[in-house]
């Protein structure tokens, strides 16, 4: 049986019966394994480099200096310790300011992994066991490019002028580019006090790195657990860099979804090709039955043949996937990790499983009909099998899709919503395609013979035409969304911001600096900014009940409950805030322990109006009553807070101040003198951050577009499968028409007309769908008015006409080359 099925495979391959099936399979497996290989490498990199990613075996992380008792405990057990402090600040070279990410490190850092440095840009770097000496700074090469500096130049950080002594090319706990908006500068921890950068309430991350034997570390963990720490977080190797893992998971889901579109389209091509394959094998099956093959033997033989095909196509697909993932890695270069390990076997298994499930799921239902071919067909050709029940076909397809999707995204809820969404999209597109085809009928009487022939073909093979239009429509729609519409959305959003929307944030301002800073801007002709005080606090109780992250299921809520809130005193609500419950306080309420919460936060944490909430402010517990709930428009770039309290409540608590303001291009030069006067203050240029975000988005989009290229290829496979399915019929028709005197050129023009129209319809549909989606995204998700872009429709139609027109004519041209007499003698 194995040998026989293998021979059948070879015979059918030779006869050209399996090519579309194989190509569709290869496309799907390549797409899936390319994504699989890439995410596998990042995932594996995260696991392998876990200890490196926190630069130690254990890390205690906090927003304020780590409680000394912890370090004492570690030292008492003989563990080694080191410190790092990280924060954002503005460095100044000459008069040029630049946002940087400062990391101050102590001797011993890093315990895991190594620092790599070089003396000059573009030279071979080397590992070092040292850290920057006092008054020296190691800078990331891109900082020097940005500021036009070189090694040996000086760089002002806070109150100290540092000498750039080395270029820092690698630090183990940095992660990838996605998380480093500003370039890194590394200094010695001993210099930190002298820089005066760490003011009260500044956004700083303090870390205590611990190194030692596992057994001792375990004991240490137990000891610090008993200290019931609130402000400190313990990070061990297994919990290293959760944000990296979340980002990877998102990337995996998104790229996985993108690849699943190719799988779906490949499935359609496979189902179409398999239907033809089955039809063309009715005679073989009848002969097999006649020569004594049982029904089970027939189905087993064809199943084995399909299995061989799946294995061979998957092997090719996996190999191509390996090449394609190199392209993705190149596009997303260093976004996640600076170096990626070799891929494992997991994506290979995934590739093969996709191939087998896809082929069996989509091809087997039509092939099952072969089991039912009556042996009597050898005597009477009109005997055809009872058609396989359509529910069987659809449930096979549905189950295969759902299981592949689940494997890609590991999220049942997402599988359900994506399958539902796909079903709805496909139904809507199919209905629209059907309506368009019906509309074409009205045109038929007004066009020449060639066009009439082409349009008649579309109408006659209506269901095939609908499938082709939808398949291409989907592919083109996604490309339109990713290319044109993405830019439209970004531009639209930027245009929706007022001209003078704040473009700079100033943070870490100390109470005694407020007046000076307001005066500074006043003197330089900038509208005096309103500074907001904020006091850091941790939510501890709701209505007297202690809260913990275990009380909530959603990740957002868990994150909210563990983060520090900024309580900001204000007499009046911000202009863009809307009170949705309760009422704002009166001047007579000032000094009373009331609080205003952002409405979504209150819902998420299940806090209601008039509830009591307790905050730990610098070790003291304070209870506030919810006086009102507010809706906040976070997109205005105005300073807003989740938690606002009346003035006078927090006067005794240490506050830091923050503001946002609009600086005209010519006023940007004010930043350098401001930072020189107030070294601890950090100025963040929104435009710089935006361009950074845009460049990351560009790369991620490019990677997604790359994956969607496969869906376009799969769309082509659908077209060729449909062409192949109609080939025998087309050949016969063209023979009849030519016998009746139709010239070859007329028939060729007819084919052009058919496929150009199909392409135009698919493009039109894609343009319409992409615009609708963009409009929904703009109005409903991002809340800004969407500007319709007629070019999208035009781009869709052009893409469709070129792609489908050329491919279609290429695929069907051969029906015109065979002499009519040969075709007529063979019959259909």
């Amino acid at each position: 049986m194995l040998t026989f099925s293998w021979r059948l495979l070879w015979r059918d391959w030779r006869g050209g019966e399996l090519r579309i099936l194989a190509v569709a399979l290869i496309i799907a497996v390549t797409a899936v394994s390319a994504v699989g290989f890439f995410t596998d490498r990042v995932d594996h990199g995260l696991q392998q480099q876990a200890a490196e990613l926190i630069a130690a075996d254990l890390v205690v992380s906090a927003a304020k200096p780590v409680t000394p008792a912890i370090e004492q405990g570690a030292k008492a057990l003989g563990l080694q310790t080191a410190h790092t402090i990280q924060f954002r600040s503005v460095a100044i070279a000459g008069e040029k300011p630049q946002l940087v990410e400062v990391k101050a490190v102590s001797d011993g850092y890093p315990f895991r992994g190594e620092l790599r440095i070089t003396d000059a840009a573009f030279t071979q770097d080397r590992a070092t066991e040292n850290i920057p000496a006092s008054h020296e700074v190691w800078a990331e090469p891109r900082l020097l490019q940005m500021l036009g500096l070189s090694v040996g130049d000086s760089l002002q950080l806070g109150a100290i002028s540092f000498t750039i002594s080395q270029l820092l090319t690698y630090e183990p706990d940095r992660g990838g580019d996605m998380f480093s908006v500003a370039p890194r500068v590394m200094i010695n921890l001993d210099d930190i006090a002298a820089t005066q950068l760490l003011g009260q309430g500044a956004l700083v991350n303090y870390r205590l790195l611990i190194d030692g034997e596992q057994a001792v570390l375990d004991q240490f963990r137990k000891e610090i657990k008993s200290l019931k720490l609130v402000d400190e977080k313990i990070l061990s190797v297994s919990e290293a860099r959760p944000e990296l893992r979340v980002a990877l998971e998102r990337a995996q889901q998104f790229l996985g979804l993108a690849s699943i579109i190719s799988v779906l389209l490949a499935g359609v091509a496979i189902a179409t090709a398999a239907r033809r394959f089955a039809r063309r094998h009715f005679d073989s099956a009848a002969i097999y039955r006649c020569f004594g093959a049982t029904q089970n033997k027939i189905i087993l033989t064809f199943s084995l043949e399909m299995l061989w095909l799946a294995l061979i196509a998957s092997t090719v697909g996996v190999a191509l996937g390996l090449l394609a993932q190199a392209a993705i890695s190149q596009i997303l270069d260093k976004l996640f990790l600076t170096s990626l390990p070799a891929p494992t076997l997991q994506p290979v298994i995934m590739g093969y499983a996709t191939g087998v499930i896809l082929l069996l799921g989509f091809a087997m239902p039509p092939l099952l009909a072969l089991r039912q071919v009556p042996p009597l067909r050898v005597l009477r050709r009109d005997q055809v099998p009872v058609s396989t029940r359509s529910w069987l076909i659809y449930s096979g397809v549905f189950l295969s899709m759902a299981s592949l999707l689940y494997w890609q995204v590991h999220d049942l809820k997402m599988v359900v919503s994506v399958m539902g969404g796909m079903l709805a999209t496909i139904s809507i597109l199919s209905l629209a395609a059907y309506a368009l085809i019906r509309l074409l009928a009205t045109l038929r009487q007004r066009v020449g013979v060639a066009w009439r022939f082409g349009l008649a073909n579309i109408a006659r093979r209506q269901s095939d035409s609908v499938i082709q239009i939808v398949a291409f429509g989907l592919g083109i729609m996604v490309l339109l969304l990713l290319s044109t519409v993405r830019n439209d959305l970004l531009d639209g959003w930027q245009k929706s911001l007022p001209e003078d929307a704040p473009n700079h944030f100033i943070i870490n301002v100390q109470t005694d600096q407020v007046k000076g800073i307001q005066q500074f801007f006043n003197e330089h002709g900038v509208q005096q900014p309103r500074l907001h005080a904020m006091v850091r606090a941790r939510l501890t109780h709701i209505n007297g009940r202690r809260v913990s992250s275990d009380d909530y299921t959603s990740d957002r809520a868990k994150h909210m409950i563990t983060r520090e809130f900024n309580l900001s005193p204000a007499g009046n609500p911000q202009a863009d805030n809307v009170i949705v419950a309760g009422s704002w306080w009166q001047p007579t309420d000032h000094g009373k322990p009331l609080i205003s919460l952002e409405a979504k936060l209150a819902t998420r944490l299940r806090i209601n109006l008039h509830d009591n909430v307790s905050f730990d402010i610098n070790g003291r517990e304070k209870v506030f009553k919810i006086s009102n709930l507010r809706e906040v428009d976070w997109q205005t770039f105005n300073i807003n807070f989740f938690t606002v309290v009346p003035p006078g409540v927090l006067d005794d608590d240490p506050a830091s101040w923050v503001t946002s303001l609009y600086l005209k291009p010519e006023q940007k030069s004010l930043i350098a003198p401001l930072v020189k006067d107030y070294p601890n203050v950090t100025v963040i240029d929104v435009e710089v951050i935006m361009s950074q975000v845009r460049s990351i988005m560009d790369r991620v989009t490019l990677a997604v577009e790359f994956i969607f290229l496969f869906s376009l290829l799969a769309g082509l496979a659908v077209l060729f499968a449909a062409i192949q399915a109609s080939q025998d019929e087309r050949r016969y028709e063209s023979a009849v028409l030519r016998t009746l005197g139709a010239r070859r050129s007329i028939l060729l023009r007819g084919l052009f007309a058919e496929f150009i129209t199909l392409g135009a319809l698919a493009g039109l549909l894609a343009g319409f769908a992409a615009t609708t989606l963009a409009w929904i995204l703009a109005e409903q998700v991002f809340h800004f008015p969407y500007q319709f872009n007629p070019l999208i429709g035009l781009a869709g139609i052009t893409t469709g006409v070129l792609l489908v027109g050329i491919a279609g004519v290429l695929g069907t041209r051969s029906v015109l080359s065979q002499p009519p007499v040969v075709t007529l003698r063979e019959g259909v």
Partner: protein
Amino acid sequence: MDSQQSSGFVQAIRLGKQVTTSEGPLVILDDINFSVPAGTSVAILGASGSGKTTLLGLLAGLDVASTGRVMINDIDLGELDEDGRALLRAGSVGFVFQNFQLLSGLTALENVMLPLELASDSKPKEVAKDILSRVGLVERLHHYPSQLSGGEQQRCAIARAFAASPEVLFADEPTGNLDLTTGKRIIDLLFELNREQGTTLIMATHDEALAGLCETRLNLQGGRLVQ
């Protein structure tokens, strides 16, 4: 005809076939009774629409009778399910068709190998080559059916029918699609192989001359046997 116990013995007992149409039941075959001793040849004669092909289909177990029984080697086909009948065919039955029924995607050699492969023969290629050379197609082993003439196609089909050494061979108008000269050559070949292998031959035809070559003739008219 007397009952015989040797293999290749075919018997029809009160055999009938009727189908339901929109205008009521339509009788195609009615009360057919005959026996074919092993190793002999029978011609089923009749005009188009007389039920020849239906009878052949029932005898070969390709179709199910409405009434009566078909016995091959004393096995009642009616008591076998579809797969049981297939297994019986695999071991004992061969076919030659009017329209040859060669699979267009397979070469002559592969077409002949097919029944051997289905019966899990250990050397399908050797056996197929052997029989193809026997029917004079040794030069045409790797040709596809479309590259063979009508006579060559039927010779190939005969080679395929005899490849698995069947006990009973059913032939449906084997010369129906061939010219007179070619048809005669094909018939000579068929009977020659039939004699060599001692096969029971049951042939449906409307050609009196061809029927005359068989030991027994059965005349079918309007679905009934007439003498």
